[in-house]
């Protein structure tokens, strides 16, 4: 969903510095703003800190300085589960489902923070959105294929009706056909009004579904702009696309 030009900011970071060790910041001063309903793409070469940035926002990496604000609430020192309650959902790149539990149990776990009365209904909604999951609901998540796992992980994140959904490379390790499917799903979710932040290596495919993109280099924002024009940007091509595609197919 393309947000209106004056759409309110839902999530922002200010001078964010974070990293696992005090003396070794990985994110080094990131300011970013995400507006309501926007589909934002986070790009950058390997080791740029994309994953660390989204994990920091989700509450998994210690913040050294700066703030994270969502809809007027300061999340900076909130534990992860309270951020979920506040409407921030995160899908990690790996180990993003509970493999020893069934699909249904995975959804039940996530639904626990909803009021008791609405849990079953919300799970039913998700099954309606992902009919494959309903078919497999008694299967242990560890037995699912990569694409099915990703689907479950997204469904689990959506249970709480988040206002912001963050995904860390959901396409990693998936076959191209499945990647398209996952992206279509994400686009559909975004179209319902869920602000989406996506970390991706699959630059071309992702630029096609995103509204805006931010390019991160060495823990700082290097470039940011409209998704469609960014695909043609020369710096971008040199920095990122060029490195990955020596034929420079992204250039005109």
């Amino acid at each position: 969903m393309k947000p209106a030009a004056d759409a309110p900011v839902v999530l922002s970071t200010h001078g964010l510095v974070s990293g696992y060790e005090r003396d070794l910041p990985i994110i080094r001063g990131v300011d970013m703003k995400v507006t309501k309903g926007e589909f934002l793409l986070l790009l950058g070469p390997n080791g740029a800190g994309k994953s660390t940035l989204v994990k920091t926002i989700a509450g998994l990496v210690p913040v050294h300085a700066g703030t994270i604000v969502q809809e007027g609430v300061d999340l900076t020192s909130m534990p992860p589960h309270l951020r979920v309650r506040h409407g921030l959902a995160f899908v990690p790149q790996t180990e993003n489902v509970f493999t020893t539990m069934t699909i249904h149990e995975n959804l039940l776990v996530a639904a626990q923070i909803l009021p008791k009365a609405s849990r079953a209904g919300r799970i039913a909604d998700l099954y309606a959105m992902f009919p494959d999951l309903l078919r497999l609901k008694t299967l242990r998540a560890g037995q699912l294929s990569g694409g099915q796992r990703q689907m479950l992980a997204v469904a689990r994140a959506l249970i709480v009706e988040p206002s912001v959904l963050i995904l860390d490379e959901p396409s990693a390790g998936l076959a191209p056909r499945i990647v398209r499917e996952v992206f279509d799903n994400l686009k559909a979710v975004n179209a319902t009004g869920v602000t989406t932040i996506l970390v991706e290596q699959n630059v071309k495919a992702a630029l096609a579904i995103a509204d805006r993109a931010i390019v991160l280099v060495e823990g700082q924002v290097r470039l940011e702009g409209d998704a469609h024009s960014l695909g043609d940007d020369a710096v971008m091509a040199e920095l990122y696309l060029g490195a990955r595609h020596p034929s420079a197919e992204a250039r005109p």
Partner: protein
Amino acid sequence: MIDLLSYGAFFLSVALSYAIICLGLNVQWGQTGLFNVGIAGFVAIGAYVSALLTTPETVDHLGGFGLPIMAGWLGAALATGFATFLIGALTIRLRADYLAIATFGAAVAIHLCILNLQSVTSGPFGIGFIPRPFANLADRPLAFSLANFALLAAVVLALYLALEHLARSPWGRVLRAIREDEPAALALGKSAVRFRLQAFALGGAIMGLAGATQAHFIGYIAPDNYQPILTFQVWAMLIVGGSGNNRGAILGAVVVWGIWALSGSAVASLFPAEQQARAASLQIVMIGLALCAILLWRPRGILGEARIMSRHVLRRSPPATPLPSTPSET
């Protein structure tokens, strides 16, 4: 004055015998990251093996083979090294704390064997008349204490030099690589297990040697010398000194033994006789609190470690958090 000197030599000799155990533990924990909670048991094996080998023939226990002291020490190191090898081989492939549990169990079992196998160890009565080095000086206390101190100091120095050399050798470098770097350890596969096992057995052998030197220094051993409190003291010594650091291991032994002896005499002078057993437990409370406090506030010990242990101890939260080692990003 002479008394004081003689006591000083005695005190330092005991501390140095603990320093030997500490050096052995440092090979296992400091260099290799293997957690041994059965130190008392392994020290006991060394003490008993050496005692059986060197005491004059008797009907009270197995042997007395009357061998020279050096043979006893060698036998002690070999026997204990073998016992640690067995325990290590059983658990070293499994999760880290299974080794801890298994060594804890081994110490319990060893203590029980010493207590119950009366025909071998003479059971709760212990073994006396263990030949003491420089026995010919026994009627001159100062010379006797100094000679024993010199012997122990020489053993500690020799071990220290050998272990430092070993740590710098290719073998030591492989060990460090295995400990510091999981992928490297995985790449080494089976041989990583072998290296760790070798280190564990070597550390055990040193503990056995320490047990033997202690036995010959005191001249008498009994099962109750080898209770969990001994394990605990040695851990406190290594942690205080700084794991991974051989000099720290020696210093820690002297410092902690000093604190132990001082607090012991404080208890003796502050509490009435009938309360002393009770008050002695406060000593243990104190050491326990000190160990926890050091783990919390100064995990690198007094001397810290020679840059070896840091990352291993301080980072890397194991509970399914592949954070620092996530290969894809960061």
